[in-house]
């Protein structure tokens, strides 16, 4: 079994989000957020970080502040409605901030390979288009916390070359709010039955923290003045002559054109003498009337 570990670069963490402290580092966090945006992309997968199993001691705390400690929590999975069983381990560094907040960085994941029994179960899931379910503890320090966070996906979404999976773990301090599990790409419907060529997991993991909302813009007086003007119906001060009076100009133009054509027709007719009116006499009359303008348009 091969486990691809993804190190999620976590330069700064969500100190602002941790409940005990709300602070002043909002600008820093925004920088941080931009990095989060990139995390999902494959280029962050660093192949050199092959798993080095973290030491059996799950937590060790250093005495100094802003300290790091290693932490582990396990991933459980279930096939359809079966009970959950261990499927892998997440390990991360727990960073304790000087102001008391704690956050996870450098998340790594080691996936246990499927046993033959598991493979059989998974094949059954694929056949019946059933759900493959995973769960994580809702608190990484004292698992399982209040409850497990569960996520499921139709098993047919996972197989590609191997089994591709994608975790998005939403954190709030040391609490796991939710885990979103699924295939890294699309899972088109209708889902076709397809068995994986290799029974190995290709895992992508992303840790996500809350973004900070943009603040409502605070404007100074002169812009407020602009707002007042905008509150009313916006009347552009100068509009072109055409824009203002087109509704009068067009009919006027038409009338003028009518008159001109009539004036032009008249000498023509006088010159040619009596033009025999083909067809019905009325049509001839019309021809000389305003219709010529319409015809020329």
């Amino acid at each position, binding site marked *: 079994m091969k486990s691809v570990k993804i190190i999620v670069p976590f330069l700064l963490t969500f100190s602002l989000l941790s409940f005990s402290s709300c602070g002043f580092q909002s600008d820093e966090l925004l920088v941080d957020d931009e990095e989060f945006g990139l995390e999902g992309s494959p280029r962050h997968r660093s192949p050199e970080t092959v798993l080095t199993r973290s030491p059996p001691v799950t937590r060790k705390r250093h005495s100094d502040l802003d300290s790091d400690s290693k932490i582990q929590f396990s991933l459980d999975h279930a096939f359809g409605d079966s009970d959950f069983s261990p499927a892998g381990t997440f390990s991360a560094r727990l960073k304790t901030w000087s102001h008391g907040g704690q956050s996870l960085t450098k998340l790594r994941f080691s996936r246990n390979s499927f046993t033959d029994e598991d493979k059989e179960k998974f094949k059954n899931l694929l056949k019946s288009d059933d759900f493959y379910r995973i769960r994580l503890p809702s608190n990484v320090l004292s698992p399982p916390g209040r409850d497990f966070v569960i996520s499921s996906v139709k098993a047919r979404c996972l197989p590609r070359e191997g089994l591709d999976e994608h975790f998005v773990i939403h954190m709030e301090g040391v609490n796991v709010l939710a885990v979103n599990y699924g295939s890294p790409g699309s899972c088109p419907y209708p889902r076709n039955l397809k068995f994986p060529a290799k029974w190995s997991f290709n895992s992508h993991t992303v840790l996500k923290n809350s973004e*900070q909302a943009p603040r409502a813009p605070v404007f100074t007086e002169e812009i407020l003045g602009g707002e007042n003007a905008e509150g009313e119906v916006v009347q552009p001060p100068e509009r072109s002559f055409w824009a203002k009076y087109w*509704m009068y100009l067009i009919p006027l133009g038409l009338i003028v054109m009518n008159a001109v054509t009539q004036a032009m027709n008249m000498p023509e007719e006088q010159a040619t003498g*009596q033009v025999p009116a083909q067809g019905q006499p009325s049509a001839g009359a019309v021809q000389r*009337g305003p219709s010529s303008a*319409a015809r020329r348009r």
Partner: protein
Amino acid sequence: MAIRSFFIPFLLFVLCFCSSLSPVLSLYEDQVGLMDWHQQYIGKVKQAVFSTQKTGRRRVIVSTEENVIASLDLRHGEIFWRHLLGSNDVINGIDIGLGKYVITLSSGGSILRSWNLPDGQMVWESFLQGPKHSKSLLLVPTNLKIEKDNVIVVFSNGRLHAVSCIDGEVLWKKDFEAESFEAQQVIQPSGSDLIYVVGFSASSQFKMYQINARNGELLKHESATFSSGFLREVSLVSSEMVVALDSTGSILLAISFQNGEISFQETPISNLVEDSSGPAVIIPLSVPGIFVIKTNSVTIFIKVIGKGKFEVVEKTNHETAVSNALPISEGQQAFALVQHAGSEIHLAVKLAHDWDDNLLKESIKMDQQRGIPHKVFINNYIRTDRSHGFRLLIVMEDHSLLLLQQGAVVWSREDGLASIIDVTASELPLERDGVSVAKVEHNLFEWLKGHMLKLKGTLMLASPKDVAAIQSMRIKSSEKSKMTRDHNGFRKLLIVLTRAGKLFALHTGDGRVVWSHLLHKSEACQSPIGLNLYQWQVPHHHALDENPSVLVISRCGPSSDAPGVLSFVDTYTGKELNSLSLIHAVVQVIPLPYTDSTEQRLHLLVDSDKHAHLYPKTSEALSIFKHEFSNIYWYSVEDHNGIIKGHALKCMCIGEVVDEFCFDTRDLWSVVFPSESEKIIATVPRKLNEVVHTQAKVIADQDVMYKYISRNILFVATVAPKCSGGIGSVTPEESWLVAYLIDTVTGRILHRVTHHGARGPVHAVFSENWVVYHYFNLRAHRYEMSVIEIYDQSRADNKDVWKLVFGKHNLTSPISLFSRPEVITKSQSYFFTHSVKAIAVTSTAKGITSEQLLIGTIGDQVLALDKRFLDPRRSVNPTQAEKEEGIIPLTDSLPIIPQSYITHALRVEGLRGIITVPAKLESTTLVFAHGVDLFFTQLAPSRTYDSLTEDFSYALLLITIVALVAAIIVTWRLSERKELQDKWR
């Protein structure tokens, strides 16, 4: 051709003319009431006090369960004045002091107010503090004076206060320190300066305090113990005796405290009534010499004869309401009782000391749909022949209020409409051969009479009464209040469910009640509590000749796992088609997007054991359901412990009884909010029946963005748990608000954003691909509104025309939510001046018309705000292209334009909800706002671009056309003549 060439310029003229006439968003003064209506209600009356002085208008002051104090006209039932107290300011008692002040005690007995009786102005207000929480009692003695001050006696919060009636000053107060003393009655025997406070202490002790009314000095304090304890309620039978029940409800106790001596007289109920069964309850009343107990469904009237001797005077199985006693003449007190018997109610007014003699006995036919009488209040007047006449104010089961006098209903008010819990809209019947289906057409005689009236009116012979009749007929026959469907879809029925469990159908044209239906009571369920309203069957009128129906879900008892009741009600007639008493509870109702061949919508009902039940229970529905079995997902929010769960169906229920309409469910996902930092305060899903016209949104630089319009998104707002306290309970540093967009099929968190320094309450509305929410910003000390728009990136590369031409796009491929979503969000926050009671959004038939937010402000008005103001793409200096697109330059706060209040000068008191219903005309939406008042109007968010407005001048159009035709004929003639001349030349 001649015609055309003439016509075009004129047509242009006409068009220009029309466009210059197109209406502004707001109304002109004379347009008020053309399309909107407003109705004022007060709610279920708790207490009523009559004010019938010899001079001035007859009125009744009422307090209601909606916390309204109102003064009603006794002649017509109209509201003179009305005050709505806050929802946490529950009224405990009202009375009239000095004949000109209305005294109200509210907020758990801590606020005493006085209002001017004629106009409802507040005169004074005083706050009464006390050591502990207790029952609140208000007593306004008529003749108790301290230094020329009339006195109000208030027992509240464990303290007795004497308050001046003139200015609300507390004259004296007396604490009742005894740790568990619970006062039941405050008695002031008329003509004495003593006040008695009686009550229980430590459940088995009866206490009596005698207090000097002049200075609050405690004169006497007695207590006596009764070993088996008391039930809490007492009935006052004289100024020296109360009647109570022991804790088992089987022994009657006459407690007399004459001269400060307490003595008990026990009488087992079985001695009085042979076949009594079950524990009794005493109905708190104050009728001298008589009290009422109730065992099971039997109401027993018992008279007190002598010292502690009882005598049963009447037993009845009918539902009975009894009024308090009313002194009518020296030493005589009368009271009323109202009994419900079938389609009639029997009234009786009796003297307190003489049971067998009735001062008044009447039977009145009563609408079955009003249910049983709940409360009765009595008032007397002097008839023309100098005898006593009585009028009764009764409150019925459906919360309506009626005044009965001389054997007739003088007026009635449908005050159940003050507490609407759910609303849905229904189409009206189609017009067939000029006869409306609802049979509002009258017979030949009435038709003739109507025409006679009209004739009279035109000949100026009509009396004022006739004029009123003609006017009402005109309103009735006018277009907007017809009982048939109209072309534009403006006429509809609003089906509303009230807290009393009554359905009303309101006509959108004028707001009248077309029919009403009290929820059916069955053997299995005595008092169903209405919960929700769903559209059950909406037949397409060409395919099916059947009336539409609604599904009413109600619960058989107050607890959430009580069994449910389904009622199916025809929306044209108000008849109950069917009623099902379920064996399971109803926790969640999921209307499925499938209908069977009779166009009944499939509904999935989830019970408290997480089983899902399919309705209707037909094999056809089952086969449709089986087909979509694996595509049905839903979610549940457990907001008490901060968990949101997603569910899907598993298999058929496993149980002893095979029920093929019952399914087991399973949990698919869960989101667990950390309890120490987040608490769910708002969850808003997208509206189920919303129509989105287009997924693509063309932005300024000819680019296209695709809206993420999945129906399965839930907006969740959480706040720091500390923030749930009152104002000032948190500093900005320790409060935050987190907004989530969660996919309800997979449980994915699509977007998550934290607002620091923000706190609830949160009001949100979700439509198309955006959500707007309103909260308070502690740092800026202002309310804020934020918008989140969510766009689908997976379709973003379908911009190439050639791709579209050659079909190499993915626009038609089915979307699976199990794919990883590629979404981007845009958001922006703006300050908003008002706090908000409700937010809704306009909805139109095809979703083409731009949307407006409807904001129910704290002033109980509804403000329409263009969605464009809440565009996250607003920037300080929009480019020319953006301006053309309609992007408004960025401002920090949202403008409140006074003309855009759709309620104009009116207020929808106690506003709770705003409902929008699309009309058939695309530009128009129907808006219904409800609270204690009701308000309805039509709204055209982008103006009525698809129809001519009311004030369009058809005459001018006709004149223009006639003039044109004439001009054509004249010119034709002229040219013909000219041609002839030319030919002859």
